[in-house]
Every structure is written in C-alpha cells, then in structure tokens.
C-alpha cells in the first residue's frame, strides 16, 4: 500500500525546511559562532545524508515509469553524496576543495532530473507546475553554493542557499495530487479532489 505521492512530498518538505532553517541560522550568526558547539557543524550535512537514505524506499516503491525510478534514484544518490562530502570535510576526513562541489552538483542534478521526469506542461495541474518550478529553483539555486565556495565568508550566498531550500520546502508542501494552478486544470488531469 503506497502512500499518495503528495504525502511523500510533504515528508521531504519537512526535511528540507529544517535543512534550510539550519543553514539560514548559520548564515545569520556566521560560521565562527555556529561552530562554537562542534556538533552543530554536523547537523545539516547529517540531515541531508539521512534524506538521501530515505529517498531509496521512494525509488523502489514508486515504479510506475522507468524515468520516475531513475529520477528518484538520482536524488537519493546526490543527496547522500552531498551530505557525505560535507560530513567528511567537517570531520577532517576529506581535504580537497573539490569535495565542496558536491552540494551545487547535487542541486543541479536534482533540478535537471525533476525537469526531465515531469513530462506534463506547466499549467497541466498543480503537481506539474510545482515540478517545473522546483526543477528550475534547484537548477538556479545551485549557483549559491557554487559561489559560496569562492566566497565562503559572504552571507549573501550562504543565505541564498538556505532560502532556496526553504522555497523548495514550501513548494513541496503546496503539492496536491489533482488540483488547479492559477485557476487552470487540464481536462486530461482527472477530477480535482483537493
């Protein structure tokens, strides 16, 4: 018995909301203050890694098309990779700066997967609109962690990343199975039930 897709979206929305809020708090107080308690540095990468692990059940149980399965697998792996790379850097196990590229890469790959796997148009239904919006948000948002690698002290870029994740969470919360978007609902989409 699979839960509706929107329930799964809400679960991950909660995860992304926490993630965004943690990163926002770090951006506001600054890295020095944030790291006064050593465990705080592990919080958001651990959460990201855990979200990646939790995406695997979604991948294997939602198999109504090959492309959905591949997209869910891509999100699982990129989230695990990004979380693992950040944890390795924090812990001092990884040293090369290239590992910092894992986070922007994860956002870019996730965004591209979202766009490719959603084959309906923007105004087909709310879920389709949100998939397009999420895809482009993640793709464009990947610029924030990318620039933050070059300007680690800039609060603009680290706040940008945090807000991108909060926006992603809000979009995921707004998802409904069959619901109109800006008054539009394709007659092909089925009966609205929300």
């Amino acid at each position: 018995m699979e839960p509706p897709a929107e329930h799964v979206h809400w679960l991950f929305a909660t995860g992304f909301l926490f993630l965004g809020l943690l990163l926002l708090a770090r951006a506001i107080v600054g890295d020095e203050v944030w790291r006064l308690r050593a465990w705080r540095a592990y919080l958001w990468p651990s959460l990201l890694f855990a979200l990646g692990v939790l995406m695997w059940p979604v991948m294997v149980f939602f198999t109504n098309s090959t492309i959905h399965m591949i997209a869910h697998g891509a999100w699982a792996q990129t989230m695990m990779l990004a979380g693992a790379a950040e944890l390795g850097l924090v812990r001092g196990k990884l040293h090369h700066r290239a590992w910092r590229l894992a986070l922007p890469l994860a956002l870019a790959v996730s965004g591209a997967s979202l766009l490719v796997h959603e084959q309906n148009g923007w105004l087909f239904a709310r879920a389709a609109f949100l998939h397009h919006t999420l895809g482009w948000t993640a793709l464009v948002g990947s610029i924030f962690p990318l620039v933050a690698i070059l300007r680690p002290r800039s609060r603009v870029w680290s706040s940008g990343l945090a807000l991108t994740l909060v926006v992603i969470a809000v979009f995921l919360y707004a998802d409904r199975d069959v619901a109109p978007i800006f008054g539009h609902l394709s007659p092909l989409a089925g009966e609205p039930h929300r």
Partner: protein
Amino acid sequence: MRKLLLLVALATLVFPAAASAHATLLKTTPGFGQRLERSPAVVRLSFDQSVDALSDGIRVLDTKGRLLSKGTVSSADKRTVSAPVGHLPRGGYTIRWRVVSADGHVVSGVYTFGVRRRAPPAAEAFGAGGPTTSEHVVRWLYFLTLALLAGGLGFRLLVLRGPLGPAAQRRFYRLLAVGVIGALEVGILAFLLRAEDALQLPFVDFLYGDLTPLANGTRFGTAFVAMTLGYALVSALLFLAWLTDREWLLWPAFVLALGFASGLSLSGHSAADAGSSWLSQFADWLHLSAASLWVGGLVQLAFVVWPLEPELRRRAFLRFSRLATVLIVVLLSAGIYLSVLRLPRLADLWSESYGQVLLVKLGLVSLALLWGAAHHFLVRPALERGAPPFARLPRSLAGESAVGMAILLAAAVLVDSKPPPRPPQQQPPLARSDAATP
C-alpha cells in the same frame, strides 16, 4: 544515436512546457498476476487522464502467442480502455497494452494473469526476450561488486583485525565504496535490463513503461527492492564507520551485505526451478557467499595488504589461507549439490548448453584450486617457518584473484542460462494384483 538522445533530453529540459500529459495506469481488470476462477469477459485498464485507444491497444495472448482479444475501445471519458475476450481455458495469459497519451507519447506495459492456475511471472510473459550478453556482463559486475564488498568486509573482520596504516585504511575503504556503490548501480541496471526484456519496447517508450508488475509481482523484482534497500543501508553504515572510525559498524554492514546477497539465491534457479527447496536456496547462498569471501579476500590481500602493509603480510597470508580452506570446502560442497540438482544426467554436461558452461566453470575452478593449493602447500609452510615471502607472490595472488573473477563470469552466464528440464519421474509399475483389478 547518443547525440540524438542527448539533444532530446536537453530539448525536454529547456522546453518542458512543450510536452504534456503522460498517462499513468491506475487500475486493471484482471489485476497484475491475478488468478481467476473463471474466464474474464473483458480486459479493462483505467488511467489517471484521458488516453486514445489504439485498435490493438490491449492484446491478450496465450502461452503460444495466440491473440485472444478483440478490438480495443475507449469509455466515454476516455480514461478507460477495454477489449472483450472470448472464453479462456485454464492457463496463463499475457496482456500487452499500449495507449497514446495526450502529448502523443505511447505509454505501454505488460502483465500476466492466470485462469484456474497461477499467473506466470511477468518476466516470462509471452514475447519476453531471454537474457542478453549485456545481462551476462551486468550479472558478472554484480558478482564482482558483491565480492569486493562482502569479501572485503570479511577479510577485515575475520582475517585482519586491528589497526591499519592510513594508506591501507584508505584503500580498504575505497575498495568497499566501489563494491557498495557498484552493487547499488549494477542492481538498478540489472533490474532495468530484465524489465526491458519483458516489456520489449523501444528505448523512449521504455522510459515511460510501467514497471510495477515487474517490481511487485516477480521474484527478481522483490529481490531488487530488498537488495537496493539493503545495500543503501550498508552504504550508510560503511560511511559512518569511515567517518567516525568506529569499526564495529563494519559488523552489521558485513552481516547485511551477506544477508541481502541471498536476494540472488531467492530469485534464481535455486528458488524457481523444478526440484528447488529451502535447501537448494540455502546452498546457493552459501555458494555465492563463499565465492564472494574468497575472491574479495584475495583482492584485499593482493592490493591492500601486500603493497601497503609489509609488516602484516605474513599474518594476513597465513590467516587468509586458513579461512580459504574452509571457504573452498563450503564452495565445493554447495556447488556439487547444486550441479547434481540441476543436471540429473551426467550426459547433460556436454549435451546441454547449461552443462557446457558448467564445464567451463569447473575447468576454471580446477585451475583456481590448483593455484590455491600451491599457495597452501608451498608458500604457507615456508612462511610458517619464517622464510621471507616470495618476490612473485603478489603477482601470484593477483593471478589467483583474476581466475576467481573469471569463475564469477562463468557463474553469471550460468545463472542467466536455463538448466535442462528434469526427466519426467517414472511411474512405479503397478503390482500384478492391482493391474488385474478392473
């Protein structure tokens, strides 16, 4: 072709609004893999949105490929398509369906049902192709990654406990990472290839093919689900062990890695073919586990300990040699039992293609055993006496592990091949008094 596919992917990414409406199958009558007590009058498929029915959009086929359904029609709201079928006698049936979504893309799928008998697995639907060379290679890679993972963990936990130098520790974890990531990726690929065989669709249609009957209704689908989840968990455990230097986390990873390898045994010949039982499945798992520990251990010995831990060479070799003896006994015992089970006649060894592949595998096993025996009876006593290790031993270990990998390739082809049918059991002759009874 690759460039074309890349362009299509980019175009879809840049102009997503141009595409619209891919239908998803919501409900079917009969259901996936359902056993019916009487012949259905009609096959009905319901979608989440309007679809256009093709005249042969639903095809009901028997095991010989005879078409038993008539023209496909749509309901008034175009969300349901149906096709009437004549009276179906007892047997297994395949439904192949294709509808056109609103965007013009064809959405397709396949599933099976049975009338007064169990439905055949979706992978054995009429028209499904057999394993291809790609599948042999993928299956081989699966075995190799399992060997790297389970064998590497077994070596570290059973043979070489205690601290390692930073370089050896790094390489040890790198090999494990290759193993676990490979097991996940190759597992997904293996599932998709098998699904492609069953669906028999062009690439673009396959991207939108419904995999649910295969993931939920077949042994290999269940194994795929369980093994993917299991190895995702193993990857998390390995990462935590590396990150926190808590090596006790390797134990649950080792147990899970070996345990979830049973997915292959529970979905292969040892589980599905005639004569299979819990014992054949257990023997298959033992066979696979012993081979993984042996080959993976050799790789660790040849590529981690020998080049990076000179101090530990002697201890590691002697302890692995003891473990290998046990592994070989398990490997051979389980292998002989399974061979007898699958090839009841000796002549099958040279007259059946399955037997011929088995012969190649046995030849490679003999070579590996000779190689291992040379290590056991020549190198081991010398090391026990305190003699310095032979200069060519690392190459020899690498050679033995290469033969082990070749055995896994033969095993991969064997797993994808169909064993010969078992001869029909002879009825005991009737007793003279029974024969005389009218």
